[in-house]
């Protein structure tokens, strides 16, 4: 039986010691690492770098915890950005086992026939003229299809999404991820490593059970040197539609995201309340921000998108200065 410490002492697949260190004994990858396979960078990294070099902003939406609202947030963010019709926005869903984006964007049923192949690669599915979506959900022929893939196959799919989809010229690429700190997360960071990534928006809910996983995700970002744009606390509170009293369904027993951000010197981008109309919109694939603009949650979304911490702010400022400068010539 291997001691647990063995797993922690992995020298890393790209290290000189890969496959040769004492801690490599018994590891299923030992032979592969010892052969030097891990050291050669994947040529796709360079190809992806070239292809996505013109994308002005790339934002990853992460959380160590499942079910906190990553896909919901990614979808609202993408729609908010695309509300400026002069901007080209793309939303890439790399949750291979549980792709939610097609349903949330009202594209359920847009299966194989909508993802065409051309000389330029796969065409994404457009939900607006300037909002493109790609998800494995579009490649499955039935809502019951399970994607029972191990890590390497999932990594291959992510590589294809980045390299082979004909995204066109983009202003924003938003990437929705599954929970965890595993293959999908390592792959997306690795394959984007030769491009500029603005950073990650981390989603949490107020309870410690969520935040203990989110702190691990923050460590992951630090380890792979991915900047953290900020943290969004979702499902912060609930206002009863009948009596208007506020309840905290997911109690912030250890201070919630506010305390975590203060402790870790991170920006708290906003606290989104629970609103049953959000779940409903997501289920029905309808745009929440457009249909329920007076929801307290909608107001918080707008605050988040316009926050100075978001790379979008600086781009607006840059664009405004360019316009002002151009007008004065």
């Amino acid at each position: 039986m291997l001691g647990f410490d063995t797993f922690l002492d992995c020298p890393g697949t790209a290290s000189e010691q890969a496959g040769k260190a004492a801690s490599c004994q018994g590891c299923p990858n030992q032979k592969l690492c010892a052969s030097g396979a891990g050291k050669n960078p994947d040529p796709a990294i360079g190809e992806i770098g070239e292809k996505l070099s013109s994308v002005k902003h790339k934002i990853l939406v992460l959380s160590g915890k499942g079910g906190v609202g990553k896909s919901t947030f990614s979808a609202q963010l993408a729609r908010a950005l695309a509300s400026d019709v002069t901007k080209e926005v793309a939303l890439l869903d790399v949750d291979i086992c549980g792709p939610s984006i097609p349903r949330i964007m009202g594209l359920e049923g847009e299966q194989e026939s909508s993802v065409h192949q051309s000389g330029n690669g796969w065409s994404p599915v457009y939900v607006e003229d300037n909002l493109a979506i790609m998800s494995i959900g579009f490649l499955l022929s039935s809502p019951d299809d399970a994607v029972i893939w191990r890590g390497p196959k999932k990594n291959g799919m992510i590589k294809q999404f980045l390299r082979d989809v004909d995204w066109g010229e983009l202003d924003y690429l938003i990437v929705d991820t599954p929970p965890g700190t595993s293959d999908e997360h390592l792959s997306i960071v690795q394959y984007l490593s030769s491009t500029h990534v603005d950073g990650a928006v981390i989603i949490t809910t107020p309870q410690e059970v969520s935040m203990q996983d989110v702190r691990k995700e923050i460590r992951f970002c630090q380890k792979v040197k991915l900047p953290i744009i900020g943290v969004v606390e979702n499902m912060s509170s609930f206002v009863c539609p009948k009596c208007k009293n506020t309840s905290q369904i997911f109690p912030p027993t250890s201070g919630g995201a506010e305390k975590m951000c203060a402790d870790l010197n991170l920006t708290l981008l906003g606290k989104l309340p629970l609103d049953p109309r959000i779940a409903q919109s997501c289920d029905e694939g309808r745009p929440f921000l457009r249909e329920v603009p007076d929801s307290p949650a909608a107001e918080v979304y707008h605050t988040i998108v316009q926050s100075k911490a978001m790379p979008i702010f600086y781009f607006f400022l840059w664009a405004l200065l360019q316009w002002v400068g151009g007008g004065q010539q």
Partner: protein
Amino acid sequence: MAEAGDGNLALVKHVVLVLSGKGGVGKSTITTELALAFKHAGKKVGILDVDLCGPSIPRMLCVGRPDVHQCDSGWVPVYTDAQKSLALMSIGFLMEDPDEAVIWRGPKKTAMIAQLVSDVAWGELDVLLVDTPPGTSDEHLAVLENLRKHRVDGAVLVTTPQAVSTGDVRREITFCKKTGVRILGIVENMSGFVCPHCTECTNIFSKGGGEELAKLTGSVFLGSVPLDPLLSASVEEGRDFAESFPNSATFSSISSISQVLLKSLEND
């Protein structure tokens, strides 16, 4: 019945996986509450937490960060009580720094799960519950491969009422069918929120999805558990919800689900 050559699982009568295609639906919460319900029914229970990236079980059962000892047969599980009626194993016990991320690709996760399944000296158990991460990937395949020699009674699938959730759970049901795992039933969690101020019930995460999913897939609907801040607070603080709130509607739902499940296991 366990077969000879099962090693550490030889004296485990029933193995139940707790699955969901979707994250955050309450797999760990339901696993914890079922385990406590079985324990209160006089059963010897174990929980194996194979969520390597986000292990929640240690916190939910308030066992702190004890050392894990080794014996001749492997790792000794962590017991929640002196009577040893609830035994736990989680990667959470094996990390020195609780905030340290487990940033592993599939093959390493697979190897760790092989150890977690085979090398814990469970001893005699009536039920071993296996709490899983969301998805249909390395962890799930690894658990099933390593339980091949031992009988798996089946899986409980947890969902919330929303279509976004049931949409993923449908895929998990396909996973079960493809891998020959019997579906013991579906639990719908976060099923309506009753305002503590005015008792109005709001369906924050929609309504009815769990029952519809059960009908659609020909599965047993085990029951629904409401969205209850008292339950959230209990699992946050690692308190026994059954002991704290035995008269609540939430406890009544959980109790009923656990009884149906136990009956189904014992009649098999």
